[in-house]
C-alpha cells in the first residue's frame, strides 16, 4: 500500500504564504519597495535625531556667548570647535583684562591653540589647547571627574576620543605629560583636544620652536577669548561695545555662539526636510507600485478566488487571505528595512558625523525603539492600503463569473 505523508492543514494564512512563495520575484520586488521606505525613514530620522541631540548638547554646555578671535579666523575657530581640526592663530592677551570691565560680561577666559604634529604611528593631528584654569568656564562643564587639585604643568586633560586613560603618559614635541583627567564625550572638537595649563602651552611653543618672530614675548598672546554675558544683556550689544573700543587696535573678529548654533540648526532643519520628503516620496511610490502590481493581477487572482468560492470559502475568508498576503509583504519590508538601516547606522554613524562636520550623540535605545515602532506602523499600512482596491474588486464579483473570467 502507498504510504501517504501527513500534511499540515491548509489554513487561510498558509494559503496566503504559499501565494507569495509561488512568485518569489514579484514578492521580492514588492518587499524592496516597502523596504526602501522603512529604511530611509528610520535611518534618516535616527540620523537627524543624533545630530539634533549632539547640537543641543553642545548648545547647553557651551557656556560662552561670545568668542573673540583674530580678524579673519572665525571660520577656523568654528572648525576647531566642531570638528577639532587643528589650527593656530594669535591675539594679544591683554585684551582679556580690558574686556572684563565692560558691564554685562560675567566671565572671561583665554585659550591658546597649538596645532600638534602627528605624533607616532596611527595618530592624526590633535588640537593642543592651553587654558586658564582660574577663569575657565568652558572646559570644566565637560569634565568626567573633577580635578582634585590644580593641574600641574606636566599634566593634561584629554578629550574622550584620545586614546589615553587617567594616569597614562603621552608625549607631544618631546614633552611628556601625565593624563590627569578625561572629558565626557562632547560630540565636537573637544573630543580630540588635549588641554594643558597656559604655562605648559607657552613652554611647549617656545621649546618646540613653533613660532617664528616675536618668540620672547610669546606670553603676550592667546588664540581666542571666551566671554560669558549676563542674562540681562544682549551679546550683540556687548560685541558692539568691544568693536568700538578695541577692533582697530587689536584687529578682532567675533563668533557669537547663538548665531553659530542657530545656523547649524537651520542647516539641520533643511536636512530633516530632505529626509522626510524623501521618505514621503518612497511611501507614495511604494503605494503606487503595489497598487499597480496588484491591479494588474486582478484577473489572474479572480480565477483562484473563484475556485475557493466554489469550494466553500466565504467572502470574508478571501478578503482575509488577500489582506494577510499584503500584510506579510509590509511586515517583512518593515523589519528588513529597519534592520538594514540600523546596521548601516551602527557601522558608519561616526563616519557620517565626521564627514558632515557636526557633533553627534548616538540615540538612546528607547528613542530608537520609539522611532522603530512609528516606522513599522507606517510601513504596515503600505501594502494593505495599496491592495485594498484590488482585494475588494476581486472578491466583489459574482464568484463563478470570476472563475470563468480568469480562464
Amino acid at each position, binding site marked *: 500500500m502507498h504510504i501517504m505523508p501527513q500534511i499540515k492543514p491548509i489554513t487561510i494564512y498558509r494559503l496566503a504564504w504559499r501565494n507569495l512563495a509561488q512568485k518569489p520575484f514579484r514578492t521580492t520586488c514588492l518587499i524592496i519597495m516597502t523596504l526602501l521606505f522603512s529604511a530611509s525613514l528610520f535611518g534618516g530620522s535616527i540620523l537627524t535625531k543624533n545630530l539634533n541631540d549632539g547640537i543641543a548638547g553642545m548648545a547647553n554646555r557651551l557656556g560662552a556667548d561670545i568668542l573673540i578671535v583674530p580678524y579673519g579666523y572665525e571660520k577656523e575657530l568654528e572648525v576647531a570647535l566642531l570638528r577639532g581640526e587643528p589650527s593656530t592663530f594669535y591675539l594679544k592677551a591683554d585684551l582679556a583684562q580690558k574686556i572684563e570691565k565692560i558691564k554685562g560680561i560675567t566671565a572671561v577666559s583665554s585659550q591658546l591653540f597649538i596645532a600638534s604634529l602627528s605624533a607616532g604611528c*596611527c595618530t592624526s593631528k590633535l588640537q593642543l589647547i592651553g587654558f586658564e584654569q582660574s577663569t575657565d568656564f568652558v572646559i570644566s562643564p565637560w569634565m568626567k571627574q573633577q580635578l582634585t587639585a590644580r593641574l600641574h604643568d606636566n599634566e593634561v586633560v584629554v578629550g574622550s576620543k584620545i586614546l589615553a586613560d587617567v594616569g597614562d603618559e603621552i608625549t607631544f614635541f618631546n614633552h611628556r605629560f601625565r593624563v590627569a583627567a578625561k572629558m565626557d564625550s562632547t560630540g565636537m572638537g573637544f573630543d580630540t583636544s588635549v588641554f594643558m595649563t597656559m604655562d605648559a602651552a607657552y613652554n611647549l611653543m617656545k621649546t618646540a620652536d613653533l613660532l617664528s618672530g616675536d618668540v620672547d614675548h610669546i606670553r603676550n598672546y592667546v588664540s581666542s577669548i571666551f566671554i560669558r554675558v549676563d542674562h540681562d544683556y544682549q551679546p550683540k550689544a556687548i560685541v558692539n561695545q568691544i568693536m568700538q573700543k578695541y577692533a582697530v587696535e587689536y584687529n578682532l573678529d567675533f563668533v557669537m555662539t547663538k548665531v553659530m548654533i542657530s545656523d547649524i540648526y537651520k542647516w539641520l532643519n533643511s536636512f530633516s526636510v530632505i529626509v522626510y520628503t524623501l521618505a514621503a516620496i518612497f511611501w507614495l511610490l511604494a503605494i503606487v507600485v503595489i497598487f499597480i502590481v496588484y491591479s494588474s493581477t486582478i484577473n489572474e487572482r479572480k480565477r483562484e478566488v473563484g475556485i475557493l468560492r466554489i469550494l466553500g470559502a466565504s467572502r470574508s475568508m478571501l478578503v482575509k487571505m488577500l489582506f494577510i498576503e499584503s500584510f506579510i509583504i509590509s511586515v517583512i519590508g518593515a523589519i528588513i528595512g529597519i534592520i538594514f538601516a540600523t*546596521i548601516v547606522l551602527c*557601522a*558608519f554613524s561616526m*563616519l557620517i558625523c*565626521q564627514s558632515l562636520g557636526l557633533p553627534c550623540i548616538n540615540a538612546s535605545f528607547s528613542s530608537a525603539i520609539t522611532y522603530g515602532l512609528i516606522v513599522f506602523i507606517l510601513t504596515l499600512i503600505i501594502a494593505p492600503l495599496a491592495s485594498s482596491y484590488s482585494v475588494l474588486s476581486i472578491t466583489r464579483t459574482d464568484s463563478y463569473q470570476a472563475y470563468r473570467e480568469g480562464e
Partner: protein
Amino acid sequence: MNRFLSSAFVILIGLLVILVPTYILPVCPPTEIMANSHDHHITYKFMKCHWTSQAEIGIGTAMVVIGLILLLIKSTLIRLGLNISLVVIAMFVAAVPTILIGVCPSEMMACHIGTLPALLLLSGILFIGILVNIFYLKRLS
C-alpha cells in the same frame, strides 16, 4: 540561473573587498618623511591600516577568482567545496582588520570609522550569502 547569481555575488563582494580599502572608503594615507636630504629621496611611513588594505586586496582577488571558477564549473560537489572555502575567506575578511593586522586605534582615523565597519559588513554579507548557497547546494546534491 542560480549558478550565475551565486558567482556574481561572490565576484561582486570580492571586488568590493578590493575597492573598499583602496578607493571607496580608503585607509589612512602614508605620512611623508624626508629621510635623506642628499638625494631628495622621499620615504613614506605607512600605518597599520595600509598593510590591512594590502592583505584585503589579496583576499579580494582570491574571492574574484573563486567566483569565476564558480561560474564555469557545473559540478555541485566542487561548487559546495568552493563555497566552504569561501566561509573561511569570509572570516579572513573580518579577521585581518581586527585581530590579524588591525587598523589605527584612534576613533578619528578614516580607517577606523570607515574601512573597518565596511569590511566587517562585507564579511557578514558574504558569510550569510555563502551559508544560504551551501544550504541550497546541499539540498541539490
